[in-house]
């Protein structure tokens, strides 16, 4: 058969390359199918003389061919270049590894029985290397090397190509590998973007959280021992609290809990806290709890706060009289545990959640604080727990727990929080937890 009008040869010539026939001699066989043999007589390449094929979608990618057989390398190289790939070649393992380390390859074609580094050894090596493990490896093998190939596929090889190479198969497999690689790369890029954004968000949340914490007062020992714990259920909590001297005689103590938690709750919490910290609001006497709650209710109507309300307890201790006055906007009562008293006293007051309804009334209450008393102020997250037997823990149980703490030993709040976690069946807390203790 005369193969002179071979279009592949024609195109090779036109492209300034040596025609295939010139490289390997006019192969025997038909015009449609020719087999190329190496000098050792081994069949290397079975090629179908190309019809002037319809152009397929453009492909690109950088491929490293590693084979100690020159003919095999060149045939692969020519075919792959024709497909639009950038091709580089190496003849031995160590050089190939060095080349891999230098640049970004999209695909590695590796002779499975390469004497200097066999396919399996290569895979064992690069799959442990985070910089290289993502590069797909396609093995080049003789048809007799099936066992070897299977072991390599099990070790993470992407695919294999049997010699002699079938051009159609070669094209399809390489394209498939490249497409999978492109998808994986895209996935990696997306993951990297997500990671970057997540880190940015975490940093911003941490910054916001540290700002919120910076607004909380430091624990103190004089004139009373005050300590607290604040454990948000997510990065940012909706609880906040404070205490301060209004004048030489009046000490204010407050805690507020915005409904829900997270960023939205925290923003309202901070806004409300800053009003209380400033202690300045025209027409409001900060020594009068009901006046403070009414002012807060006027200032933060839920319709203007993204439909969020908050509960709040506000108390004022008067040093000269030893009395406390307090009011509550839908907040759980503070708890007073006094020496010699059989039962703890709930400092409860009627009043609607802050921002819930315009014009709500907050009725102030008052009571004595006997010397040596302990006052506990907390949010509902401290006791709204689900016990191991799926039962809802109650305020009264929590009150009993607080009352049972030994009176002569300072309260270990970390231990108390640990106890609360155990009561919640050691599951993550659903809500923010804030707890303040004052030892009078």
């Amino acid at each position, binding site marked *: 058969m005369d193969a002179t009008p071979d279009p592949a040869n024609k195109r090779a010539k036109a492209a300034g390359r040596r025609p295939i026939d010139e490289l390997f001699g006019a192969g025997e066989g038909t015009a449609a199918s020719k087999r190329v043999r190496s000098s050792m007589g081994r069949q290397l390449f079975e090629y179908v003389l190309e019809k002037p094929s319809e152009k397929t979608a453009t492909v690109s990618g950088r491929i490293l061919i590693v084979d100690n057989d020159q003919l095999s390398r060149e045939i692969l190289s020519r075919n792959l270049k024709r497909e639009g790939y950038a091709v580089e070649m190496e003849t031995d393992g160590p050089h190939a590894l060095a080349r891999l380390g230098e640049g970004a390859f999209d695909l590695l074609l590796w002779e499975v029985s390469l004497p200097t580094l066999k396919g399996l050894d290569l895979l064992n090596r690069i799959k442990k290397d985070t910089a290289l493990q993502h590069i797909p490896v396609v093995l080049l093998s003789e048809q007799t090397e099936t066992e070897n190939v299977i072991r390599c596929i099990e070790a993470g090889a992407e695919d294999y190509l049997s010699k002699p190479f079938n051009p159609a198969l070669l094209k399809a497999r390489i394209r498939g590998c490249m497409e999978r690689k492109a998808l994986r790369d895209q996935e990696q890029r997306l993951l990297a973007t997500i990671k970057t954004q997540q880190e940015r968000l975490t940093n911003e949340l941490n910054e916001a959280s540290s700002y919120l914490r910076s607004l909380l007062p430091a624990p103190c020992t004089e004139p009373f021992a005050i300590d607290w714990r604040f454990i948000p259920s997510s990065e940012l909590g909706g609880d906040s609290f404070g205490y301060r001297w209004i004048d030489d005689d009046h000490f204010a103590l407050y805690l507020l*809990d915005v*409904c*829900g938690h997270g960023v939205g709750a925290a923003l309202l919490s901070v806004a409300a806290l800053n009003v209380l910290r400033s202690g300045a609001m025209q027409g409001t006497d900060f020594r009068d709890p009901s006046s403070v709650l009414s002012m807060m209710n006027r200032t933060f109507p*839920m319709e203007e706060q993204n*439909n*969020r*309300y908050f*509960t709040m307890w506000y108390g004022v201790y008067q040093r000269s009289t030893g009395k406390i006055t307090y009011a*509550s*906007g*839908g*907040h*759980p*009562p503070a708890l007073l545990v006094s020496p010699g008293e059989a039962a703890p006293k709930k400092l*409860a007051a*009627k*009043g*609607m*959640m802050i921002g*819930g*309804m315009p014009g*709500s009334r907050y009725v102030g209450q008052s009571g004595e604080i006997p010397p040596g008393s302990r006052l506990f102020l907390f949010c*509902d997250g401290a006791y*709204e727990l689900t016990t191991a037997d799926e039962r*809802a823990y*109650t*305020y009264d149980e929590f009150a009993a727990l607080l009352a049972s703490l030994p009176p002569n030993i300072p309260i270990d709040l970390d231990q108390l929080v640990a106890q609360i976690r155990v009561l919640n069946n050691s599951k993550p807390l*659903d*809500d923010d937890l804030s707890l303040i203790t004052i030892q009078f």
Partner: protein
Amino acid sequence: MELNVIHSDDSYTHIALAGKLDVGGVGEIENKFLGYTAARKKNAVVDISGVNFLGSMGLRIILDAAKSLAREKKQLILLNPQPLVGEVLEASGIGEIVSIQTDAAAAVALAQS
């Protein structure tokens, strides 16, 4: 979280809630709940005897519904809270705008009035 409709006509609405009215529970029924209460603009009885937990977000939708109805001169009537839920309602001060009843016939009569 479940929401069952017991009665709904031009005169009043009667629904029953069951489950945990926490953030997740609220998410499951919020639209439906507001649809049967605030949106219908009729007096509404909400049987909450099956609600075993009422969190702050649960209070919010009750408050939302009650306020919407109050603007239409209608009221929200909560029926038969379990003791712990009753305590939460009591502490929240929501009684200012919501009627809390323990007798179904009385609650329905109130809704029909």
